[in-house]
């Protein structure tokens, strides 16, 4: 029983962290129809920034700065690597994303020397707490609530602000939105800024829980978050959040059985099953081909 609860707790917590990354994937996809492969690496860079900055300044300064720098990074990636390719075939943009991911990982390897780095201890969040007989960190308990608050704020932003309306318009029809006088580039930048900011917050929660950061530390959470976004129906924010929780719990349930080898494969099997039953994910819109 204790064990079952602990599995559920870590599943929900990890799911919450995936959700924060998955939103970045799903928003970018919704607008650009681009799988932003570099997103997981932005997440990793946010972690590394946290290490380097908090080594030289107190946490209350370094953490907002991490957020800011990650946002700047996300913005720059979009401007340098994706914007020039807006008229190019979709595959080229995706390759550009893979290239950026490559570049970030290799640069991180170069700078850190490939050694795992240790994330600083954040007071309170890192403290241990006992729940129903299993001890865990506070961050584990707080993550799902924080995610819910952030997602609510985000949906408010999308549904009740001008920028949010513009985002929805661009997602619906790129060209018509442009004709209506929406400044596409600004909207896309805003999307990347929001995505990166959430990834930065996600990295603080994730790496407080799992403290070592290697240059590939973003790859696995990135991939899982992406899977979560697809399960939920890529392009849909509530879908990404629900998908992330499903993936997080599912992964931890498989880890608790004797088939641990399949902890990744299991999530993919679930993904394929959902795609076969519902080809655009749980909350995805139906796409009809125009002739």
């Amino acid at each position: 029983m204790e064990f079952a609860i602990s599995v559920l707790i870590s599943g929900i917590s990890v799911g919450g962290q995936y959700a924060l990354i998955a939103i970045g994937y799903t928003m970018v996809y919704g607008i650009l129809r681009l799988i932003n492969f570099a997103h997981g690496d932005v997440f990793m860079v946010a972690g590394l920034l946290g290490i380097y900055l908090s080594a030289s300044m107190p946490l209350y300064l370094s953490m907002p700065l991490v957020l800011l720098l990650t946002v700047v990074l996300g913005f720059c990636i979009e401007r340098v690597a994706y914007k020039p390719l807006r008229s190019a075939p979709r595959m080229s943009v995706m390759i550009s994303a893979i290239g950026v991911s490559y570049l970030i990982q290799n640069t991180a390897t170069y700078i850190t020397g490939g050694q795992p780095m240790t994330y600083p201890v954040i007071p309170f969040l890192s403290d241990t707490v006992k729940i129903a007989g299993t001890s865990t960190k506070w961050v584990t308990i707080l993550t799902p609530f924080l995610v819910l608050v952030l997602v609510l704020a985000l949906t408010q932003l999308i549904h009740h602000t001008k920028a949010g309306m513009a985002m929805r318009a661009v997602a619906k029809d790129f060209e018509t939105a442009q004709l209506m006088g929406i400044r596409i580039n600004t909207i896309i930048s805003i999307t990347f800024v929001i995505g990166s900011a959430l990834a930065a917050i996600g990295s603080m929660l994730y790496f407080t829980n799992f403290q070592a950061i290697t240059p590939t530390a973003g790859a696995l959470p990135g991939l899982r978050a992406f899977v979560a976004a697809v399960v939920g129906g890529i392009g849909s924010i509530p879908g990404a959040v629900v998908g992330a929780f499903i993936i997080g719990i599912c992964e931890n349930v498989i880890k608790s059985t004797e088939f641990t080898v399949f902890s990744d494969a299991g999530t993919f099997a679930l993904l394929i099953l959902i795609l076969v039953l519902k080809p655009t994910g749980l909350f995805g819109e139906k796409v009809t081909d125009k002739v």
Partner: protein
Amino acid sequence: MIQQKSKKGAVAALIACTALLAVIVLLENVSVFLPASSVPNLLKPTSQLFAVLKKGAVYSLAAVSMNLLNGFTGLFSLGQAGFMLLGAYTYAILSVPVADREAVYYLYGGSAVNFSFQDMFGSIFGTQGVGGAVSMGLGVVVAMILAGCVAAVFAYLIGLPVLRLKSDYLAIATLGFAEIIKAVFQWQALGPVTNGANMIKSFPTFSSFNITDASGTVILRLSTFFPFLVSMICIAMICLLINSTYGRAFKAIREDETAAEAMGINLAKHKMLSFCTSAFFAGVSGAMFAMFVTNAHAKVYTTTMTYEILLIVVIGGIGSISGSVMATFLYVACSEWWLRFLDSEVVLSNGMKLPFLRAGFRMVVFSVVIMIVVLFFRRGIMGDKELPDLFKKRIRKEGAK
């Protein structure tokens, strides 16, 4: 490797390929014919040049087979590494000599599959001398074909549910299947067949094709020639397919699925055909990859590998076979050879250290180069043109002058 319609062109392509093979054999055998002291470092059999050529030959087949699917049929699949893994393991499992199985499967006290093609042919043609060579060669070829077949069969099974999906959903589903296949091969419970987490080795590799005399001295090197030959044959087959009615149907599907269907093209059938053919050749290239790294190890066939091949395809030009081939050699040579000097610190004569140069810098420079290529050559180095097209255009232009 060259797309040709006229007979004349086909002959020219054949001549070009034969010439290239001859050059490879010559290059490779310089070290055999000349005395050791006068062979330049670069042409010694273990030089980087040959490692790059071999890997390039293997990867170019993988890239072309991916191009068939992604470039010519417009099906965005990321399952390449999974199919290569299937090919590599099928080849390895069927090729390890029975005598070596106990050592290779040391954790499991021997293998569940006590059979290898080399031994089977060995019992027909003999195991020594020419007979041994024939049975080894036949064993390798049969195992490689089977490797392709196994990959194709799996592709068929995977394709049944998955090919109905559209674009990115198809991509992520195939990627998922590659991961599932990898996990299955790493499962300890299947250890007696797949050797679990351990690598399978001791099967015939490229260097097994070097012809030696009785004392073991090499008299003719064919270890680079062999992967080139196999890749060329396979790529030629892909070319023939692309230029056939099927190929034109593939391209129609790429341009517009709905229109293609309206023209009477059976979408499901053609998509499946393209998917399985691509998987077959991916399987063959996987088998060759296993021969190149001299082992089959599931851990290597990651999504990163798929991305690498996709990168090559796009750099070469989506829908250009000669582009994929050229991009492969450039890519492999850059990442593993030409830029390697960036990894070691250089101390100048006045004792100054050059900045930035240390382990890891090579990959940073390499990824910057890739980004430049992707951003400034957005259609890849060849676009959807083939090598002969360029020559033709030039001749026409010069003629006009």
